């Protein structure tokens, strides 16, 4: 058994937290895990990725192109960076948040729309899930929402139950349990 997960997003969104929660759940299961985050620089707003590899044995840090079972993308445009890493027919779940660089905000640069992202993603795999962000209750954590949606729509469910991940979230964030569980349930219903 082994699972390679490639996560992308923008600094400050909480993408790395998703990876850490999965890593902790894997640890608790006694599975081997390698979590390799790439944060770029200290600033917010830059590209962030994480490579997570879970298995019975030690695994190397980098996922090769076409080697990821799952892609979890937390930003619409950044999901495009991950596509080449996905296995043909792998699972991808996209939280289509648009974190606009200044030039896009000012109308000086382009930003891909959901339809065009969907179109390229479909060239890679049939299993594309574009989440509906309106299902997230106001003020709740979007990364938790995305994690539970990933559990629902990807091979992550072959490894973890929703109870396992939910308890991982509760342990990690003892303060915001109620609101995080709202996010989690919303993700399950997405």
């Amino acid at each position, binding site marked *: 058994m082994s699972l390679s997960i490639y996560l992308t997003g923008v600094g400050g969104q909480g993408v790395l937290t998703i990876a850490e929660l999965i890593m902790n759940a894997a640890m608790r299961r006694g599975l081997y895990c390698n979590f390799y985050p790439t944060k770029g620089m*200290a600033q917010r707003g830059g590209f962030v990725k994480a490579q997570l590899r879970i298995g019975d044995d030690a695994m*190397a840090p980098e996922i090769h192109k076409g080697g990821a079972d799952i892609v979890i993308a937390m930003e619409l445009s950044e999901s495009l960076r991950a596509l080449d890493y996905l296995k043909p027919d792998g699972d991808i779940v996209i939280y289509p948040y648009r974190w606009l660089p200044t030039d896009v905000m000012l109308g000086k640069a382009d930003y891909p729309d959901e339809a065009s992202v969907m179109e390229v993603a479909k060239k890679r795999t049939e299993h594309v899930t574009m989440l509906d962000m309106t299902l997230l209750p106001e003020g709740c954590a979007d990364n938790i929402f995305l994690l539970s949606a990933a559990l629902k729509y990807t091979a992550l469910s072959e490894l973890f139950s929703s109870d396992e991940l939910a308890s991982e979230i509760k342990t990690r964030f003892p303060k915001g349990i109620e609101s995080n569980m709202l996010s989690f349930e919303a993700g399950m219903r997405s």
Partner: protein
Amino acid sequence: MIKNISGNEAVAIAAVNAGAAVITGYPGTPSSETVGSLWGKNIEGVHVEWSTNEKVALEIAAAASWANKRALCTMKMSGLNVAYDSLVSIAYSGCTGALVVYVCDDPGVSAGMPEQDIRGFAKMTDMPVIDVASVDESYWLTKYAFELSERIQSPVILRSVTSVALSHSTVDIPDMMPPAQAEPHVYKDIEKFTKAGAKICMDQHKRLIESLEIARQYMREDVINQLCIAKDTSLGIIVSGVCASYLDEGMELARKHADFHAVSSLVVRSTVPLPTDEIREMIENCDTIVVVEENEPYVEHGVMLEAFKLGKKIRVIGKEDGTLSRIGNFDAMSIAVAVLTALDCEIPSEFTERLGAESLCTKRPIGVCAGCPHRGVFMSINEALRRMGIKKDEAIVTGDIGCTILGMSPPFNTLWTEVSMGASSPMAQGFIHAGIKTPVISTIGDSTFLHGGIPGVINAVQNNVDMLTIIMDNGWTCMTGMQVNAGTSKEYQAKEFHNRVDIAKIVPALGVEHFAVHDPYDLEGMTALIGDMLKLSGVKVILARRECAIQAARRKVKYGIMSVDQDKCTKCKLCIMKTGCPGLVYDGSNVHIDKKLCNGCGICKSLCKFNALVKEEI
């Protein structure tokens, strides 16, 4: 104990458990968490410090290793360039305790700076270099490096790469348990600890070369490099560093596209000295040898040399034949490609086909954070030059290393050059001596100034150069993750008795006549000051002082509450265009303040001609 830790932390725990009494370093991605993970922990008998620069860090650790102690010094690859002068001398002298120099290379450049391979330095110095392939090895090989160093009485380089140093991995390693320390002991030995005369230097060189040979024997006995000769095959593969961790996965990938027997393999963990016996055994058993190593083909060259010495003609698949690249980092596919090439199989199209999705991806130029004080400096420089009637791209502004270099990006586009820590001022002087008549300004961060920026300013004073230097003092070494430096406020220094070194006192002491300290949040004042300074002749220095916004935000510091008066806002978006501040958002119809990001620095406020940006003082 099973735990999940990073490669850097594993090195830190191993060093403490190996009995290191002195642990030094200078921040640099991806090596920083080694000292970082020990920072603030009071470990009995262990001195931990962020030194002023890598050369200082190495010299301190080396002296401890000359006092019969074990010492660790950590840095990123660029740091070794700075420390190298001392490293050569120290290698010649050797040590009486143990000295391990932990250096991280960055194949694939995820932290910025050259893609250099420090194994070249080790070769040039005849110093053993042990390459770790995983977080697990980061622990065990650190411990081994200390033992080896003590046995051969010479420093040992421990090399990691970004993908190992920053990976968090499940490992079964002991908890941190510092052993009891013995008393230090230094003996006076001019022939060992000085370079007084040719004979002493050549004797030391001889000892160094011999120690390398002893290291080779020890590593052979301890099976540090693992050879596995397979029967019925003439194909062998040699992997080094992190590439070893991709071996099985890469083979499996290759097997999906070709049928082949088990191959002979050699995992090289010491590029210097190369395991020549093991390499020879592989050459004797194989006609084709695949060598997979990131960056430079050092192991590959060693294989070719041994084959030459043996008088056997073999085929080597690696970088010299063009199969693999000297650029970028590797993964399992690199191994599969090299093996399939060795088998004369076609490279499957799925290895090379790309969707081209990345080209649709929005570009994200990295800029400074919301409320960053550096923003005030870049904008003031631009505005001061504009007021002097100098067009953009007419006045050279040299940059230095750190968040301070982000002024090269839009919307500022202020900076022209980035070379290495402290180079900003000498580069500016060079432009001036070349005859550039427009004003030349150099910019540098506080940590960088203390690290290597001071000699450049001294040089400018001596030569009485007409130039302005702006020291951007945000109180921390930020780009690498906000480490403490000598200029950081006293309350954040490691121990109560530690001192803070005030840059405001250093600058006048260097002989700089025109010196001013100013708050970069005050755009108008800063702009005027730059304009005034540029009218003066000789060396001018401005210390732009304001704490890093992220560090301040961690203590919940806010300077005001900003809002947009929608009745006054004409949606000209000038504030966004000029500041590029992530705290200002245009949603397609209105300009807003992102309350989570904005710290109320007020920089944007003074730009709005319609007074639509309102700051509520708190």
